[in-house]
């Protein structure tokens, strides 16, 4: 089936099978491998991307269902060589251990700070509970979100 998507600002056409998952389109056809496949059933958040500005799990969205939409992945977050304040904060706070969950966490953090520029720790933990870090580096992740909020706000 023919579909059209805007991925990280670029309009692209694809011819896909009806059962193709958005995640596999992003990884296998666009070769944007920052978005990860984790559990495949909506528990881990590693495949989080933005679809029309909202954080969604790309392993649970059919590519045909995203037809006409705007998809933003981790690759579109930095502006050229310039890191996004959220990415910089994750690095500075040591919020990245093995790094597998990080793209998903950063996409969720981006959605959080857009909705709520000054979240409390409870609000951060609540919003990010759909993202799992199996290195269990949650303390530094929360710190990174707080630090990113200050950078963006201040």
């Amino acid at each position: 089936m023919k579909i059209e998507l805007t991925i990280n600002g670029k309009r692209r056409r694809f011819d896909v099978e009806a059962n193709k998952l958005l995640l596999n389109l992003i990884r296998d056809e666009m070769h944007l491998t920052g978005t990860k496949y984790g559990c495949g059933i909506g528990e881990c958040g590693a495949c989080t991307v933005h679809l029309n500005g909202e954080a969604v799990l790309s392993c649970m969205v059919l590519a045909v269902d995203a037809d006409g939409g705007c998809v933003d992945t981790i690759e579109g977050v930095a502006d050229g060589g310039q890191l996004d304040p959220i990415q910089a904060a994750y690095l500075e706070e040591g919020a990245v251990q093995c790094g597998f969950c990080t793209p998903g966490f950063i996409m969720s953090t981006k959605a959080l700070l857009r909705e709520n520029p000054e979240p409390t720790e409870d609000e951060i933990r609540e919003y990010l509970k759909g993202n799992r870090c199996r290195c269990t580096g949650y303390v530094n992740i929360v710190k990174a979100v707080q630090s990113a909020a200050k950078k963006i706000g201040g």
Partner: protein
Amino acid sequence: MHINRVNTHIMPIRFEYHAPASLDEAVELLERYGKEAKILAGGTDLIPQIKQRQTEPRHVINIKGIPELARIKETDGGIGIGALARLRAIELSPLMNEKLPLMVEAAKTVGSVQIRNRATIGGNICNASPSADMATPLMALDAEVHVYGKGGARTYPIGEFFLGRGEVKLDPGEMLTGMTVPLPPEGAGSAFEKVGWTTFDIATVNVAAVVTLKGGRIDLCRVALGACSPAPIRVAQAEEALKGKKPTDEVLSESAAYVSACVEPRERWRRAPPEYRRRTSKALAMDAVSRAVEAAGR
């Protein structure tokens, strides 16, 4: 829990995809393909079900192209909620926060933000999981559901909609279009309580309560229990035990015992044994009613 029992990286089956732009078109497709068709709304249940081969539809009908089904609006009978209203939209809707805080409270307990950005209330109740978190409050709020098919539109009480585990009252070719939730009386208080394995897990037990007070005594009272029987239920005896009484600990405990007595053990209950559900449902019923009493205007 059966994570990665099969390869969840891909969709293991092929199907024909349909994206009707109107209700009539959707119903025609449903009629034509019958049991071979599945409706796709948010996909947060259907996609993992297909991945794990729990269902193998030959036709997938995406109804998201029917915009009128996503509306949340005030109507004569209360609040009209379209089947495609996403849980996140319910959670963030000022109208829902003002008029139906019970639904907002329940919606917030479902999955994660990413799930709620896609999951719809219609999908939540049509999957008819006994633990569906939106079903229990809808029962406590006396909602009505609207369905549509070749024979036209029908409306009936939510209690009649659930026939059992995974079964809802929809004739072949019929689909859910939305629901109407009557506004609780002025001054009513409500509360939703839930226990799962983790904070974003599905419910092992959930309870919803709506009460009003008159002169310090409980007047109107509705208590619903989820995840403990083939479908969510209202517990009339628990409600009777509260009516006209002062909400003391003894009264709450006596009423909650009726809730706990409704637990219908299933042969294979993976998530929790019957005794756990009995004790937990009693505790949650007491918590829900006492929080609803606190929230009620005196």
